[in-house]
């Protein structure tokens, strides 16, 4: 940070020293120009806010039983009160509070799963593409094997064997995702490896590690970020689906999938309980997909320039 604000401002606009801030500005401008990306960002920021600060702000503790206020309908319908904005469930727990807090575990699981799955897939793809030969063949057959099975099937079987739990869930979702990364990263590595500057780097005697770090990885990054954004959407779906079937996050922790699972049994008595967790999942998945679409356009344009 410079001490003179005037100098600082000047360098932000035309100095090469501040390209980082420039690029952030460029990203923001591009997001604002795309209506869908703006909407996606607003939704995701709201959900992130709910996940981070929600537990401190909610009107009712998520597991507070209040048998006097069972099955209160949402506030706008007959018999509803503003105290329970989205109504209550069979134990008098506040649906709105649970929905807000549910964002936390849903996002934690999705982020961790993408981080773990992305790292494994990235490394596998990097190795397969760079080393080639038999190593490549073995990794690609593993990818084939993975892709032969629907992810939900693998997820359910693995969770059935491991038992419901947050750590298991993260690992299982990560495992269902690694193959996508591996395939795409490998493809990108093959493309980059064939370029003259990598040949040049090799001719200069750079170590494999440095070539991977300095020349290959940066070129693979944009695809990786795009895949990761879409994977977040997929991970949120799997978290909810596995929790919905009772093989995900333990039912004591509120997540959107768990809430839907409970709501399903109360469909006749309390239909409102089933609506909002699904809306929350849909909006989050939609936002990550829109963001991924925007990112793909944005990074492609940059590559073409």
């Amino acid at each position: 940070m410079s001490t003179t604000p005037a100098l600082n401002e000047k360098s932000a606009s035309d100095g090469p020293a501040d390209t980082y801030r420039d690029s952030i500005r460029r990203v923001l401008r591009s997001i604002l120009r795309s209506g869908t990306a703006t909407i996606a960002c607003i939704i995701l920021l709201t959900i992130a806010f709910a996940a981070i600060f929600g537990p401190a702000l909610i009107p009712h503790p998520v597991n507070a039983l209040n048998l006097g206020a069972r099955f209160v309908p949402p506030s706008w319908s007959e018999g509803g009160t503003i105290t329970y904005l989205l109504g209550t469930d069979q134990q008098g727990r506040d649906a709105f509070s649970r929905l807000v807090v549910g964002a936390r575990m849903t996002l934690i699981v999705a982020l961790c799963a993408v981080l773990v799955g992305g790292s494994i897939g990235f490394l596998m793809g990097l190795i397969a593409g760079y080393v080639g030969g038999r190593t490549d063949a073995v990794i690609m057959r593993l990818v084939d094997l993975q892709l032969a099975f629907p992810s939900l099937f693998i997820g359910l079987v693995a969770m059935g064997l491991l038992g419901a739990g947050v750590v298991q869930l993260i690992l299982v979702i990560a495992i269902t995702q690694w193959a996508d990364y591996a395939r795409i990263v490998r493809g990108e590595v093959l493309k980059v490896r064939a370029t003259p500057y990598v040949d040049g780097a090799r001719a200069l005697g750079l170590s494999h590690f440095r070539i991977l770090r300095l020349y290959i990885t940066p070129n693979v990054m944009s695809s990786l970020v795009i895949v990761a954004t879409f994977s977040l959407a997929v991970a949120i779906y799997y978290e909810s689906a596995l929790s919905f079937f009772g093989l995900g996050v333990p039912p004591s922790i509120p997540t959107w999938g768990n809430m839907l699972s409970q709501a399903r049994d109360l469909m006749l008595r309390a239909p409102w309980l089933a609506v909002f967790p699904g809306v929350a999942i849909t909006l989050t998945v939609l936002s990550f997909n829109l963001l991924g679409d925007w990112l793909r356009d944005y990074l492609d344009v940059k590559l073409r320039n």
Partner: protein
Amino acid sequence: MSYIAQRLYHGFIVLFAAASISFVLMFIIGDPVLMRIGDDATQETIDRVRQQMGLDRPLIVQYGQFMWGVVQGDFGLSYRHQEPVLGLLISRLGNSIILAVPALLLAICVSIPVGVISAMHRNRPIDFIARTFALVGQAAPNFWVGIMLILLFAIHLRWLPASGMGGETLGEKLKYMIMPVFTLSLLTMAYLTRMMRGAVLELMGQDFVRTARAKGLSPRRVMYRHVVRNAMLPYVTISGLQLGSLISGSMVVESVFSWPGFGRFLLDSIRLMDIPVVAGALTLVAVMYVVLAFIVDVIYTLLDPRLRRS
């Protein structure tokens, strides 16, 4: 054709690996003896059954026997039903196909015209509506869509039966199918619509399309002969590879709508840890995938003459 041979070879590797995973599931993770006779059996009984089932032999021999069984379609007996696994699975496959085929057809019949129209009227209201529908259809989790449909059409409006498979006449039978088929179809429909739209838009900017237009062909003819035909190429591959999402989808949809099919049976077997059924399904799913991927490869080679030459 060496491409096809290579794919075939890869397919066999996948099948071999899938069967091996099934073996690991059955003989290493699950203990078939305890599963069969329960925890409270005496040691003597356990030993006797173990010997009867050939489980006292070395693991490698058991593995060989298991693989030989798999080749003949023998995955052992279900713990729950005490019947051969393959028969149980196949008997339920029919009910799933009753849902899956109409779902796939619906997805195809909607996605091709909607994708083409959406691309032709890019950025107009009709495109906006189609894209919104596709985006939401892709984002809404199928188990929730199912619940919402039940709430609306079965509980609130009382137009359709909430769940199950029944009805005497064809019309009544169809009533039971409408919601599951739509729910199963939605994701594929949305996905294929987006794909079709993207493919058409990309092709519309290509040189050969411009040439066709410059030749004075009618826009309709350019669209159908030059754009849509070429867009069908990736479309065929991708719609063929929807098997996975149809299987996942049928697990969800059949469970939500209590439809007595393969997916629901599989889900119940996973929940109750009926390992022979899970292991058998694992191999069966791999077989379906490999066969379908192979057929798609062959069709693709037939459709694209460039691939045939190389």
